[in-house]
């Protein structure tokens, strides 16, 4: 679901929910689909293939099995028909295709705090498939700007790919509300903590506001973000405690978190890194190597005092994760740029010992040579 201010009215205006389309009940009979819906399914299959060919689907069987396990717990009668996979993409987004393919971006996955919040997202997406929202909408969003935006986001051709477009740009307000409310019921039935549902949105509002994110993200389509927080808060008011699942979540997404830290760093998204990692509560959710990434983010931001902050974080990373090679390089470079070659040299050497196959080996050897080592 995606916030597209220019398209919101169009989406709302174009929605016409058909009342006679029954939700799937567990038996999904693809052969019995009407022609229009068959086309949507065929498009979805093509989209699935294009994502896989482009290498966008995260190659992490353990993670995908974990996600699938949660989905199967939420929708047990569907026997795996809703297939969940993580996508290597930085945006805070998740979406459901008409054929039951559910995707959650690593960018969103890394930002969630526990399994109950993840289940909130997956339960919501599952409703879009079960209630056949793609097919229910009688009009499709076709404007070129939306197409261009969606193509730019994932880089797969969307010519005529209505299924993907509808899924990724979001459904009508009624459908989104239905997905929230019905998804909530699934969450409770599966034994998850209802109190985590509003938190799924709350802790991300601050990030979205602070970074002034103007990109597709899960939470900002219809209805308004704050409304959804309040809606879930109301639903969860009298809910009994349920499973939160923080520890197992953290364990399963550890690699995803490191991956997204690296992705954010490589793409110079240092604001996100600083916002997330400088918060001690959120920092605790990340592996110890995170200190290196925070250090790098300070270095890239480059405000007054940031180099000192960077140095502090690199040093902390060396203590907490002594086998994590990039920290040595980063601290070595900091000393090198200051002209402190004697301090830099042993750090560079240690970096190359820990990472003999480093693709940037040539630079580091050059620095060592310049340092007289």
């Amino acid at each position: 679901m995606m916030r597209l201010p220019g398209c919101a009215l169009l989406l709302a205006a174009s929605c016409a929910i058909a009342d006679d389309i029954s939700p799937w009940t567990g038996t999904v009979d693809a052969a019995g689909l009407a022609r229009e819906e068959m086309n949507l399914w065929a498009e979805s299959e093509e989209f699935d293939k294009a994502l896989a060919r482009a290498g966008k689907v995260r190659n992490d069987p353990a993670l995908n099995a974990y996600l699938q396990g949660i989905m199967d717990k939420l929708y047990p009668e569907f026997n795996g028909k809703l297939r969940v996979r993580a996508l290597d993409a930085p945006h805070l987004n998740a979406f459901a295709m008409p054929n039951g393919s559910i995707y959650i971006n690593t960018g969103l996955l890394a930002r969630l705090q526990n399994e109950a919040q993840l289940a909130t997202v997956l339960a919501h997406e599952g409703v879009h498939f079960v209630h056949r929202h793609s097919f229910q909408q009688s009009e499709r969003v076709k404007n070129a700007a939306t197409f261009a935006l969606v193509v730019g986001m994932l880089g797969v051709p969307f010519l005529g790919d209505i299924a993907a477009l509808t899924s990724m740009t979001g459904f009508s307000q009624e459908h989104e509300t239905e997905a929230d409310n019905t998804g909530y019921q699934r969450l409770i039935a599966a034994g998850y903590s209802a109190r985590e549902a509003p938190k799924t949105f709350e802790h991300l509002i601050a990030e979205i506001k602070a970074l002034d994110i103007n990109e597709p993200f899960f939470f900002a389509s219809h209805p308004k973000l704050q409304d959804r927080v309040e809606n879930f808060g109301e639903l969860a008011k009298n809910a009994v405690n349920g499973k939160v699942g923080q520890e197992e979540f953290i364990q399963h997404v550890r690699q995803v978190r490191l991956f997204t830290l690296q992705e954010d760093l490589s793409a110079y998204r240092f604001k996100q890194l600083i916002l997330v990692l400088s918060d001690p509560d959120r920092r605790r959710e990340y592996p110890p190597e995170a200190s290196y990434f925070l250090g790098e983010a300070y270095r890239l931001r480059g405000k007054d005092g940031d180099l000192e902050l960077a140095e502090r974080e690199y040093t902390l990373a060396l203590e907490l994760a002594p086998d994590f090679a990039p920290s040595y390089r980063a601290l070595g470079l900091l000393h090198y740029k200051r002209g402190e070659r004697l301090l830099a040299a042993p750090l560079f050497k240690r970096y190359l010992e820990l990472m003999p196959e480093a693709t940037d080996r040539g630079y580091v050897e050059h620095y060592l040579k310049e340092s007289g080592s």
Partner: protein
Amino acid sequence: MRIISSVILLLALSLPGLCLAAFSAVNPKLSVQPQDQQPRKILLMPPQMFVAEMSAGGVIQKQDDWTKQANENLLAAAETHARENGRFETMRMPALSPEEAEIVESHIGLYDRVASAIHAYGQGRDSGWELKKSEWDYTLGDGLAFLREKTGADSALIFVGADIISTGGRKAAFTVGLLIGIAIPLGQSFITVGLADLKTGEIQWLSYDQSMSMDSREAGEVEKLVREFFKTWPHSK
């Protein structure tokens, strides 16, 4: 004077359209191939053609059943032509392992680009590109050679294209860009066919057609198109 200015405008605007009329490009080596080296068995690659509908409201949507029909029509037309021609036989793609399918897919991706390059520059008609007339070295490489071993075929035939069927009479003011880098006005079809040597990957021949009236769902029309394509093949009867 108004008529003259209108004619000039029309001419200027239609220049790209004139350039996209049906044409072919042939590897110079193919023309002089002795008979015993000409393709004997041609593997029909799964056609990369889609059919979409454009409604009166300007909505375009791929139609899976039409696409399947059009692709089947292309394969059947190629098979019919082979029977009538008698100089080569055809076979359809056998089942592939996931790894083999991945290799084929990436080579089709390369073919998209090669076909576009041949169309735009490979004929050597444009200024600066005259060299290509004599230095034809467009190739897919030897990555598909395993298909030769698997099937016994010596060449592969690939159809790529799009057919945007306009219903409701809407006239589109915009074009759709195909993966092969061609832009076609909506309500038209654009189909290309290419032949590649499976051992070396060398592109031997390409032909294109653009039409406002063809309906690729109709077997007869596609058969006629494929017959026209093969008229430009050097080894046609």
